[in-house]
């Protein structure tokens, strides 16, 4: 009995130091389902972070959860991570709809959540203490594009087209608000259901409204359908502005006759002048044979931050949250710091970028201080 007790005592004594040696972090991401093509970028970014943390002597054990793009699946993933796996923090999810649901749950569990890419404004506007967002918000997406548009030209009217999801509706609302602020008249606004093969009836109406600029919030596939059908109907505004993932993928750029001169706001590009960006892009290209989207960089930096903070805090969630609140970082994603402002809590003020497709290639064209190419304005017409 005595021996058993002493053994127990040794075990209890060892347990915390074992926990210190390895931190358990949860990941929620859309690894399958319709969002999987972008989800893959997050997965790969996080894998790079895992390697780089290991190189720094921080061994993280990642628990991967697939939300399949559905909020309810994300919720049960959070339950599992918080109660069964007992992780010290979570990085995720991908889409705004899932992240918004997961954030609420994280707050209930007092689980530090670093949100890498979901940009719906409300996510960090609900007084949450444990939700930290690296990503810019949909408001930033709209603002940078319209700032650029009003500097380069004198647009008076705008048409706003978005998908009817959390991300799309939030993006459209931000665009409308910012357009009002800038004195640009909204002449057309509509939310479409994504995945349809035919948007012509909507685009005909846009054409009738004859806007100076066209603002679209879309994911991958719809972006291509929309631009193809815009070409079909010969829509020629001053500029096509894309806020969202759909307009900043290689696939989109490679469709040269529909992608040329389309602007897209993004959070990161491989050619931006932040330290390490180019190396990250090359490393990604070499390993996976693809150019990374901004999601990969967001996810990478989110996991780096979470890993470093969690390692310092040991197994304590409160300490992790405190560490996230107090820290400041700098790297390939520019400066990162979680602050409270404009009704946001623990929100990173991220410098957005605008990239433009020029002959099948992306160039960072805005802001001018960070640009790698000059913007083509106005839209030169269809090829």
């Amino acid at each position, binding site marked *: 009995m005595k021996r058993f007790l002493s053994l127990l005592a040794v075990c209890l004594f060892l347990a915390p130091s074992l926990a210190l040696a390895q931190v358990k972090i949860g990941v929620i991401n859309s690894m399958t389902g319709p969002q999987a093509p972008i989800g893959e970028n997050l997965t790969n970014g996080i894998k790079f972070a895992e390697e780089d943390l290991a190189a720094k002597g921080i061994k993280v054990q990642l628990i991967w959860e697939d939300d399949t793009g559905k909020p309810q699946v994300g919720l049960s993933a959070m339950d599992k991570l918080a109660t069964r796996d007992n992780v010290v923090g979570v990085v995720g999810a991908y889409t705004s709809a899932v992240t918004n649901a997961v954030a609420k749950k994280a707050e209930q569990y007092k689980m530090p959540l670093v949100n890498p890419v979901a940009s719906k404004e409300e996510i960090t506007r609900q007084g949450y203490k444990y939700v930290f967002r690296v990503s810019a918000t949909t408001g930033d997406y709209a603002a940078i594009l319209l700032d650029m548009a009003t500097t380069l030209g004198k647009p008076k009217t705008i048409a706003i087209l978005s998908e009817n999801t959390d991300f799309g509706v939030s993006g459209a609302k931000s665009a409308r608000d910012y357009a009002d602020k800038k004195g640009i008249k909204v002449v057309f606004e509509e*939310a*479409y259901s994504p995945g349809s093969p*035919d948007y012509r009836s*909507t685009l*005909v*109406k846009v054409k009738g409204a004859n806007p100076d600029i066209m603002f679209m919030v879309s994911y991958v596939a719809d972006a291509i359908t929309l631009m193809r059908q815009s070409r*079909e109907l010969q829509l020629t505004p001053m500029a096509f502005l894309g806020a969202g993932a759909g307009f900043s993928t290689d696939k989109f750029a490679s469709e040269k006759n529909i992608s040329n001169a389309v602007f897209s706001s993004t959070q990161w590009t491989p050619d931006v002048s932040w330290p390490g960006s180019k190396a990250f892009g090359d490393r990604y290209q070499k390993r996976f044979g693809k150019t990374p989207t901004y999601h990969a960089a967001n996810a990478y930096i989110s996991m780096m931050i979470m890993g470093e903070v969690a390692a310092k805090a040991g197994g304590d969630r409160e300490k992790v949250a405190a560490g996230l609140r107090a820290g400041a970082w700098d790297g390939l994603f520019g400066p990162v710091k979680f602050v409270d402002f404009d009704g946001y809590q623990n929100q990173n003020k991220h410098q957005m970028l605008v990239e433009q497709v020029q002959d099948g290639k992306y160039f960072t064209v805005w802001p001018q201080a960070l640009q790698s190419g000059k913007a083509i304005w106005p839209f030169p017409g269809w090829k």
Partner: protein
Amino acid sequence: MTIFLQSLLSGVLIGGAYALIGVGLTIIFGVMRIINFAHGDLVMLGMYASYFLFTLGNVDPFVSIVFVFPLLFLFGAILQKTVINKVLNALPQNQILLTIGIGLILSNTMMLLFTSDYRIISTSYSSGSFRLGEISVSTPLLLSFVITAAVTAILYWFLLKTDTGQAIRATAQDRDAAQLMGVNVKRMSVLATGIGAGLAAVAGSLISPTYYIFPQVGQPFTLKAFVIVVLGGMGSVMGATVGGVLIGATESLAGAYISSGLKDLVVYVLFLLILLFKPAGLFGKSRV
């Protein structure tokens, strides 16, 4: 007026492809009384077949149907002989589970093999159009509609004029009576599934130049086909043809006059109304 004509035109043209998918589903249902919930995934297989013929063999997607139809016909026939045939007399819920299962296996196998990346076929005419007065006509959509019409015409000729076609219709009307009259109903079931799968795949090939391809692309088409078939009358080829065009046009007009986010709502309200006043569907005969 321009908006009306433009929307109606593109709706009818895209409805042609819907009709083809619906006709495939209705033939399978007619002959075997099984609703094929894997139908959309057959459309997806057709898309992938066209994609690989285009990228690897440089075959135009519209020409590729010459290869895609026999390929998927064979696939459908084998599927019927090996799997579906086993549940012909099983409980309806078992049949449903089986076809849903087949669909899941198909889409997930494709994901395993080709990842979930979106694939796009870019032909020289993918976003081409020409003007007809005030309205612009999409070249790929018009071409696909013409081919759809031709395929449908051949199908009608086959079902109405040939012996095999008549045997298929006889089986659809009354399986037992057809068997008593010497029709080989087992063979007809295999044929019908093959034709159904082939038609779904052809529709996939025809949509592929203007759409995008990924493993889960089929699921919305299953639902759409189901609505079209019920709307037109279960088992009625004529009904599915009209139903497809009707749904296409309704979607498009609803998108133009109400909101594209609400077009599904309009489609389903129309669907419910028709079922309310004509429970057997537009061309359906109520069976007792």
